[in-house]
């Protein structure tokens, strides 16, 4: 296993991502097998090179391997891929970026269909990045490509962060009557809602702890969902989420437990006074 410099690692990731994108479009090849062969080829070519291998040394190997676009004949690609490919490759390579931004703006004009246009714009943006040959080109096009990507990713992140809140609030309202009848600790309105809030916030905290662990692992599904912003999820951010989640979970579990024990105690005291 060769050791690459940071910039070489990034360059290799970009190259393999591009290769995967093209190869997955082709029905006649096994993308994973080809990727494995390409990785093996690179390792063989760089055997004996000074480590960490520089970006220049790696780029020389990648240049000889050629652009992944050259590997698969166009006739082997599915129809939808050919449409994207034709839109993408023209006199200049900005068509998909313009299309993405156009769809995004159209969503604001036809507000009832905003979600449809936003989804279309998001998919076109992802295709534009997948088909892009280099990072410089993505940087130049980011004002056109990124709006829909940012909106979708922010919405997705907020949903992922807060879904237990909606579920537990629904449970709190839906089962209010049954819970209050079953447990005498919940008979009082104030008591019920203090306990319910403790449950809601501590379950949210528990989810944040789990979510932080999932974020830390950066598995394939997460990379696919958050891409190309996956690098923004830093270790520090993940740790903060984990810590806040843990504090919320512990603090509000403690509040709930104390209240659970304190209510009968209070009732007993009042009963004693009578």
């Amino acid at each position: 296993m060769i050791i690459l410099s940071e910039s070489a690692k990034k360059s290799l990731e970009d190259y393999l991502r591009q290769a995967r994108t093209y190869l997955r479009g082709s029905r006649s090849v096994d993308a994973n097998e080809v990727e494995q062969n390409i990785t093996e080829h690179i390792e063989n070519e760089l055997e004996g090179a000074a480590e960490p291998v520089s970006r220049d040394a790696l780029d020389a190997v990648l240049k000889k391997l050629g652009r992944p676009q050259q590997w698969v004949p166009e006739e082997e690609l599915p129809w939808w891929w050919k449409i994207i490919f034709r839109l993408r490759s023209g006199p200049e390579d900005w068509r998909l970026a313009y299309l993405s931004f156009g769809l995004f703006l159209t969503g604001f004009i036809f507000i009832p269909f905003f979600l449809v246009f936003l989804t279309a714009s998001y998919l076109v943006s992802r295709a534009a990045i997948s088909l892009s040959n280099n990072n410089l080109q993505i940087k130049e096009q980011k004002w056109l490509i990124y709006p829909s990507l940012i909106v979708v990713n922010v919405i997705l992140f907020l949903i992922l962060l807060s879904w237990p809140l909606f579920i537990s609030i629904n449970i709190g309202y839906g089962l209010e009557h049954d819970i209050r009848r079953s447990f005498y600790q919940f008979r009082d309105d104030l008591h019920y809602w203090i306990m319910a809030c403790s449950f809601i916030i501590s379950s949210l905290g528990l989810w944040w702890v789990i979510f932080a662990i999932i974020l830390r692992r950066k598995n394939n599904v997460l990379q696919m969902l958050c891409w190309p912003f996956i690098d923004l999820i830093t270790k520090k951010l993940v740790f903060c989420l984990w810590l806040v989640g843990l504090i919320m979970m512990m603090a509000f579990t403690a509040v709930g437990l104390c209240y659970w024990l304190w209510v009968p105690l209070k009732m007993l005291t009042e009963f004693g006074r009578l």
Partner: protein
Amino acid sequence: MNAKFFDNWTNQLRKGVLELCILNDIRNRKMYGYEIVRRLRKIEGLIISEGAIYPILSRLKRQGLVETSIKESPDGPARKYYKLTEQGEDMVSQMNAYWQAISGATNSIEKG
């Protein structure tokens, strides 16, 4: 205009010849992907992008003309070796015969 015509023609020719060369290369003994690239890169003008060989190998495998086996390597991780299947043997024989016939006929036409 002429340069573009020549480019298109060589591209079309190269594609078929490359497949024939790969199949012939693994006809006598099994080889791993990088080894095939290393041997074929010596033929000038045959390979424009070395990476193109791997999707061809994958396609030939899907078509049942080659098969793979994993073998431990003394130099590092296990390698995937490619070899012809029976179907591949028949195919490469047919392709070689066709190639001989075509190139022979082309040579005789060229000589007038």
